[in-house]
């Protein structure tokens, strides 16, 4: 999968409350959630972001709440992926589970400025800054997570586990 878009760059500790404020956590619909994505951090984000754009941020992106709607809201706003120096752990799991591509790449974050055009080869984890011509390699997911993603996500994995269990008991 190749992702191509403009980078919207933010700092450290972008928390789930600014990704989707608590007042919208009674919503479930991705499109409705997407209308408020990053509203309390950057009120213009939804206006300026185009479908396929990427977020580039410093350390501890997604810290705070377990609200899965944070990942869903970003997807709903058309965000194609997030490149960060590090991710908070619950958000990290939620991205894998909701299919929001994430890339841990400290050098890439330092080498990308707000508004740069970037291309990401999601399968290889190669991030290319088209504005500077430089390329960066994201940290590889552990094998288990690669298989989980390649296998269609957590729910498919669960279906397989249930079949295994059923086979064992019969």
């Amino acid at each position: 999968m190749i992702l191509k878009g403009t980078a919207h760059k933010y700092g450290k500790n972008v928390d789930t409350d600014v990704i989707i404020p608590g007042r919208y956590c009674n919503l479930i619909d991705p499109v409705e959630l997407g209308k408020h994505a990053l509203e309390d951090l950057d009120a213009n984000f939804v206006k300026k972001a185009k479908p396929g754009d990427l977020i580039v941020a410093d350390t501890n992106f997604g810290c705070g709440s377990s609200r899965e709607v944070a990942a869903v809201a970003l997807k709903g706003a058309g965000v194609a992926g997030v490149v960060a120096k590090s991710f908070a752990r619950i958000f990290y799991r939620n991205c894998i589970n909701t299919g929001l591509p994430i890339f841990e790449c400290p050098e890439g974050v330092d080498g990308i400025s707000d508004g740069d055009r970037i291309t990401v080869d999601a399968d290889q984890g190669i991030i290319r800054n088209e504005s500077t011509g430089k390329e960066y390699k994201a940290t590889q997911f552990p094998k288990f997570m690669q298989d989980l993603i390649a296998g269609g996500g957590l729910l498919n994995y669960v279906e397989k586990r249930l079949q295994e269990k059923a086979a064992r008991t019969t």
Partner: protein
Amino acid sequence: MARSMTLTEKILAAHSGRADVSPGDIISIDLDLVMANELSAAVAITEFRKIKGATKVWDRSKIALVPSHFTPNKDIATATLSKMMRDFAQEQSIEHYFEVGRGGIEHVVLPENGFVGPGMTIIGGDSHTTTYGGVGAFATGVGSTDIAAAFATGEMWLRVPPSIKITYEGSLRPFTSAKDIILATIGQLGVDGAIYCALEFAGPVIRELPISGRFTMANMSIEAGAKNGIFPVDATTEAYCAAVGKKDYTIYYADKNAQYAQSTVIDCSKIEPQVAIPWLPENTKNASDLNDIEVHQAVIGTCTNGRIEDMRQAAEILKGRKVHPRVRAIVIPGSQKVYMQCLKEGLAEIFIEAGCVVSTPTCGPCVGGHMGVLADGERCISTTNRNFRGRMGHVKSEVYLAGPYVAAASAVTGHIAGPEQLGKPVAA
């Protein structure tokens, strides 16, 4: 021979059928308890329905569903989410569903009903599920899809976290509570200081700490980025379990030669009452250095500080005193049981006499949901756990985090203050 392990590693090894585990291993663990509130459950139920082959939950006695966040329902949208969870509980004959009026905030309700105990593995659709580490359980927060998977299988995959050991030496100063220690700890570690790690608490101060204080500290482990925070089990833990009727648990101990990614000693004798200023829990200062900061609201309660011991601390300050004319003080007992205890001990009367509102148990204001949302430019001193931008309402409102003593003292003075800065109560 199995390798020497930390407390967290011991529990994870035992629940994954392995002799030992090492940090970085990806394992599947059997779960002893899976919790969700109305916000996380609604999405989890939707995901659960998508799983082919999962019509029934794996074990209806090991799931707890607790309406808590926007309850009693604040609007039609939240009423709909609550209804989804209630209907699911009925359909699946979930044994532990706590209706409004019979429960409260999940992290107060589950312990006081004897559902959490030493050595257990617990996940919850709420980041503050780490609370249960207070009784020596491995407990961590996850998103709704992970909850859906756990509903179906009773299992979860995870990466074994490296452990960070924090030893608390010295002794607590007057009016310094567990909240002040954990705020000081987060101030030292930073909000990502324990990212992907387990925090293991130890030392003489911890041994003296009641379980309520241990819950407060474990609760905020997530604010340092930790996967879980855990306390060694001791006589205090066992007495607590006996009191709440928790039986049949296994006690694990960290091995003597266990390896920690980091070991830190904190001298509690140096910790004054703390306040974390916007916009991160790591921005900790001494309360006494923030006297020129006026407050408009004080919130005392929630999953961090909504237990009876916290209510007693607030009442100790508010007895015979009045809330400042500019301040709205909102006291939220964490559960119906805590509320009843406040009535029995005369604490509710103290709060009302002082000019506080005493609210039904709810997470309400902490998440900017209801029961105390802030307007543009308003400032709240709060015993909650997060002071992120817009957390309690308007994007230009501010939350200052503190323990019950400081929150109550600030409600009286109208600005941030430590209890030692108060004059004598006006009436006996």
